[in-house]
């Protein structure tokens, strides 16, 4: 039974590193890569649950088309993780179901 869901990093060219926090776990990501890539490397699976049946999903297309990579990024719900670049100190959480409706971020 497969257990490890972490993506593996091949040798990469010299790039800056940033620290981000995903579901409370601090990980090192490559400067310029997407949050979705960092989440896959961290092995966080699923990265969201659906509003309709609460089933798990993970990044599917990596190019902004499927919207299955929606996560809560720096407090902003339903953000496309594959279209967002990592930034040092970023806080990323699983998007659970539909977003909370709050006054200030309509």
């Amino acid at each position, binding site marked *: *039974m497969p257990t490890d869901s972490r993506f*593996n990093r091949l040798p990469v060219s010299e790039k800056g590193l940033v620290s981000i926090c995903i579901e409370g776990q601090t990980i090192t990501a490559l400067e*310029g*890569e997407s949050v979705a890539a960092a989440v896959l490397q961290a*092995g966080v699976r699923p990265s969201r649950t*659906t509003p309709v049946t609460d089933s798990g999903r993970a990044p599917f297309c990596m190019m902004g088309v*499927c*919207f299955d990579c929606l996560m809560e990024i720096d407090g902003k719900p339903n953000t496309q993780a594959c279209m967002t670049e990592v930034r040092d100190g970023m806080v990323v959480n699983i998007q659970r179901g539909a977003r909370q409706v709050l006054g200030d971020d309509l």
Partner: protein
Amino acid sequence: MNSNQFDLAIIGAGPAGMSAASTAAKQGLKVLLLDEQPRPGGQIYRNIGSPALKDRQILGPDYYYGEKLLTAFSGAGVTYLHGATVWEVTTDNILYVSVKGESRRFEFNKLLIATGAQERPSPFPGWTLPGVMTCGAAQILLKTSGLTPPGPIVIAGSGPLLLLISCQLIRAGIKIDAILDTTPGKNYRSALPEFLGALKGWRFVLKGMRMLSEIRKAGIQQLSGVTGLSADQDESGNLSAVTYYDNKGHQQTLSCSSLLVHQGVIPNSQLTRSLGLAHVWDEVQKCWKPELNKWGQSSHPDILVAGDSAGIGGALAAELQGKLAVFEIVRQRDAGSATSGNNEIEQEKAIQELQQQLVIRPFLDRLYSPAEEFMSPPDETIVCRCEEVTAGEIRSLANDGCRGPNQTKAFCRAGMGPCQGRQCGTTVSSLLASELKASPAQVGYYNIRAPIKPLTLGELATIGNADSNC
């Protein structure tokens, strides 16, 4: 001309957009290039300005060829906005784009849509499970991050990209547990008459053969004629295995942690649709595409389309189409003046090269036409990933009298989620067509309306001060 007005606005910085931008700048046009990604390249040359992988062998020369296009465009004096999501274009030559959470408004004389392709949505039971991703997604992860999926890895589907990603993973030293080829046997027969024509594009044929032999040499278990694909889940709801029928009709199950799927690519038509441009159903490529003349001119006099968003032709064709669209724009501008006709030689050359590029298509399109089970999947399959609507629900709506996708949308919400039908549009049209014994052309497609990407009210609110400088 003020800073928000451009002779030519181009949407998409892939091969078509980059080549159009540098050609247009050379012709003296004031050019705006908008792209949703943080860096130019499109999907094919994604991250070409700062490739992640140390070992250039893995992605191979076809990828690094993009560096040439990038250099030409970088020095051309084009206004380039990255991270720029176009959410509306109006038919009176205005476009709205969201950049870093703020909306901006630009005016253009001509618009070139070069939004490329997306992978064909290929629904099968379990395709929404975490652990299933497209071959294109896996490739993007290689290009941008040097990441490879966790094993055991199974690759399933049909099309050149399936072979390409397999070879790239092999070169990276990654073990692929199995390749399940779903190309229907009948496709070989329907593609055969096109094979002689394809030989005129012998370079492509050779490339294909090389990939096949690379996979064979790696000793990967490769199965053809696979049907009945489905993904199974473990107790936590993640992918655990793939189940399928082999070509003898025996059901098999392979345990896996990653399942990479692919069924070819289709034009990304969200924007051309939202503009109400005329579209046609391509029965061979099994997709919708905008109706264009040979220069890429759409049904709107100021809007042209180039590259894969005009119909699938691949990266090199896209580059040439981008160029040709600009020559047409310049010809229209100069019509009647003494300077006209300057580009005729270059134009003629580009046309010939384009024909050469497309010579392989009739063969490829027939060979890799998706199997029926992905166009019209089993009832329990989710077709709309966002609203979790199944194929069975669409079928029963058809039997209850729904005649088109806009009607089913009203009843079951398929196509109303955040992806706005990008992942279900083609399937819903095909399902309705087969249920109603009509063609997708008769059944039609979703009406796509702006904003074509979800937008916060906050972003909309900034539109008042949108006339800012670049």
